């Protein structure tokens, strides 16, 4: 999942570099969602361990 997010970050930067605003925006939203989902996964994981 981390690798996928970094690939999304790379793709987003390339889209920005090439001036593809819509693609960059979409990739940015996808990246944010993926980061939040991964954070949620790790947060609940640690919560289960502590419980």
């Amino acid at each position: 999942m981390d690798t996928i997010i970094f690939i999304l970050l790379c793709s987003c930067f390339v889209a920005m570099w090439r001036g593809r605003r819509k693609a960059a925006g979409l990739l940015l939203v996808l990246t944010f969602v993926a980061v939040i989902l991964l954070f949620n996964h790790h947060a609940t994981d640690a919560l289960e361990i502590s419980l």
Partner: protein
Amino acid sequence: MRSLRVNLAQFCILAITGVLIAAFGVQFGAGELPCPLCMLQRMGMILAAFGPAWLLLRAMRGPIDARDYAQCYGISVLAAIVGGAVSVRQTLLHIAPSDPGFGEPVMGLHLYTWGIVIFATVCIVSGIQLLMLPKNSERLHIGVRAKCVLFLFAAVITVNTVAVFALEGFHWVIPDDPTSYRLFGDAP
């Protein structure tokens, strides 16, 4: 004022790139492998730098207006909130007095505590930038220095991608306390 905006955007990218290079120093120099929350903070920092990076990249293609500035620094503020939440989470995990914390402290603070400071600074700097929005669209001069900063930032993202792939291997997530690069030392 225009050059101040360009310089501030460059400074933001360069500062975050410097922090990410320092994190590489800890990872490859001191041999401390990053935990999943550390990696999430790196993602937050890269996303926070995307705001000023996008501003410079847009400015290369033509004039930019207040809406462009607001969008770019809005990205930075959102990224700082997400990254800051991760930093606070990790700090709270190690807040008990007997807990030694994760990794070695740098200048008295652990890296995740520095993360809170960095994300708070991103929010403050973005707020200041948003206070200085231009009334009309303007054309910014993007020089060689700005392009070098963007290339350096791109290189850091690329190296991070390779490093995280080596660390994660063909697994879904990074282990809570990584001890080796799973791409080389662990079967999928």
